[in-house]
């Protein structure tokens, strides 16, 4: 009897009607997600298995696009370059932001000013950043190389004009851009640590490194997890910085996956291969993220 009374005349359950209100609240976001993310995702998946020029009917190509891109040296190179770029970006950005957060968590003068100053690169326009760094890293008269010459480096690197140094150059710029934002995340993490733990440890005679390695680092592990994951994702999909600073050059020394996808889609007009490459990038990032979630269970302590 009771159950029956829960049903309306149209046969909708009370729970469903209540849920409907909830759905209507997320609808605006959902529509945007469907049109601009979900449908293109599915479309891109279909494209990666087809041959299409954008105008005539699509032809089914099976795995040909994937076979082709894996035979393309530029693509295989792009995977390695992306991995190389990401690895160092993640490690160095993490180290830099943690270091800065530790420094700025202490009671020093003008702490607010330094925090703002370090956060600034993150909000600065990437176009401006790339123009300025292009000039800074100029091989002959750029300030960076002038400084290196001043301290006695006789043959400073060619940075963006050299195939060996272009990725390290980009890593430096990217780390500089990232560190302020992740510093803020670490600062928040540091401020959540209960001061009484430090006091207790100090009473027991713990100092410097022991405090850091036994208290700070383990208690920061949720922040570290978030920082590493965001950095991995951001650095794998890096596009704006590379496009603005080198356009993948010299040669294709800094052509990473997103740049490769862009070139295939908008220079060669080969949507099939571009989508296939995008799928590979998707799979790589997906696997890394899944792996990190597994690792989180074991490594994150709190």
């Amino acid at each position, binding site marked *: 009897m009771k159950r029956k009374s829960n049903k309306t005349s149209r046969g909708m359950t009370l729970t469903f009607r209540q849920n409907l209100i909830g759905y209507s609240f997320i609808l605006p976001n959902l529509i945007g*997600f469907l049109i*601009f*993310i979900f*449908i*293109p*995702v599915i*479309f*891109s998946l279909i*494209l990666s298995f087809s041959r299409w*020029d*954008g*105008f*005539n009917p699509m032809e089914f190509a099976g795995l040909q696009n994937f076979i*082709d891109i894996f035979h*393309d040296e530029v693509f295989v190179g792009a995977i390695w370059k992306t991995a190389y770029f990401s690895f160092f970006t993640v490690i160095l950005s993490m180290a830099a932001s943690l270091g800065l957060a530790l420094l700025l968590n202490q009671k020093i003068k003008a702490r607010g000013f330094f925090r703002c100053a370090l956060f600034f690169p993150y909000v600065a326009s990437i176009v401006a950043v790339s*123009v300025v760094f*292009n*000039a800074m*890293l*100029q*091989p*002959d008269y*750029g300030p960076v190389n002038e400084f290196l010459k001043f301290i006695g480096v006789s043959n400073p690197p*060619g*940075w*963006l*004009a*050299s*195939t060996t140094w272009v990725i390290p150059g980009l890593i430096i710029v990217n780390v500089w851009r990232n560190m302020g934002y992740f510093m803020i995340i670490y600062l928040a993490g540091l401020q959540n640590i209960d001061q009484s733990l430090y006091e207790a440890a100090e009473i027991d005679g713990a100092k410097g490194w022991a405090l850091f390695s036994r208290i700070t680092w383990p208690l920061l592990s949720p922040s570290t997890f978030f920082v590493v*994951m*965001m950095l991995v*994702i951001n650095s*794998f*999909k890096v596009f704006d910085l590379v496009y603005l600073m080198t356009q*993948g*050059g*010299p*040669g*294709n*020394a800094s052509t990473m996956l*997103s740049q490769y*996808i*862009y*070139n295939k*889609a*908008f*220079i*060669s*007009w080969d*949507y099939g291969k*571009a*989508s296939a490459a*995008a*799928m590979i*990038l*998707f799979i790589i*990032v*997906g696997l890394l*993220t899944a792996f990190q979630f597994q690792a989180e269970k074991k490594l994150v302590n709190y």
Partner: protein
Amino acid sequence: MRKKTVKSIALGLTAVTLAATVLSGCGSSKDSAESGKNGGEEEVTLTFPVWDLATNGYLKNIVDGFQKEHPNIKINMVDTAGSEYMNKLTIMLNGGTDCDIVYVKDPDTTASYMKKGQLEDLTSYIEKDGIDTSKYISYDSFNLEGKQAALPFKTDYYVLFYNKDIFDDAGVQYPSNDMTWTEWEEMCSKLTSGEGANKIYGGFLHTWQACVQNWAIQDGKNTILGPDYTFMKPYYEMALRMQDAGTIMDYSTLKTGNIAYASVFQQGTVATVPMGTWLVQQMIAKKAAGETDVNWGIATIPHPDGVEAGSTVGSTTPMAINANSKYKEEAWEFIKYACGEKGSSYLISAGGFPSYQDDTTIGEICKADGMPEGAAEALQTTSIVLDRPININSAEVNQMLGEEHSLIMIKEKSIDDGLKEMGERAKEIENS
């Protein structure tokens, strides 16, 4: 948040493409169907996508002139930024009926449009109206598999710009209209002087691969499609030799400093610059605006040994008709006008170089205010080779050549290795 970020990575690009396809419908010729019943004749509106209208004012003059002669045809110009234009045009064409007149900024793309069946074959129109096709520069280049894909509108070609004051100071005679590249190289070393910030460079090769490779295809025997690129070797040797000797600016300095060819010439720090005739228009404008006081002149582009003087390399921008347009006859009327005598005269009065040329054209061009003395002789050509052949692979090959070019110029690769790599990659592109 994490999930969304991951998804957007791989798919952002596709999202943009799709969104653009959906949204580009907004610019369509909706009012095409409107008819002016009062006049008796049906009024049609043609959509004409153009780029950077503010700097290409002659297009507006052509459209106005045309509309005066054809009161029943209205031309709706859709202006787009130059760097975005080709993407926009491709998407419009893919959408079907968004545009009627197809003005192809990167002419080699004509081949892929034609292959997709997006361009009307102009042969019957040209025959019907008895157009004298011999007056068009590179008319035949747009004949693809027996179909005339487009009509040439504008042809720019390479000439040698020089700074008269630097020649006078160095006591060197002005460049002649019959000079080989070897002579140019020697001339550049005589003109180079000074040190550091005050250094005057005798020559200048811009960072485009075209500024080395064009001289290799100038004889018309080879094209940038290769696939054997050994014919480019002498010109790469020349470029590197001049770079080492300091008679041209260093490639990596130009590239990393993002230095524009026009500004170095206008600042008077280089004596000679081989560059396209589009710089003529710009020099006249800058000089008139008082932004440069360089006393400039032009000479015919140097030529390889054993090739006739006046052989040069250029690029032709054509106009075509969308195969899916509802108003092909009207679109043809416009193209015929724009690419014909009248359209060309508007182009000429703005300092531009039309593809439609007769005996008087060069003379007319040289009448423009601010044109240097002797331009009429300097601008004479015996042949104009297209820098990029109208071929479906040109864009992709060109991208590849740009990559290898930079490696050779910064000496990360030897000339031989670079040219060999170009050959291998060109073959891959051809077979894909």
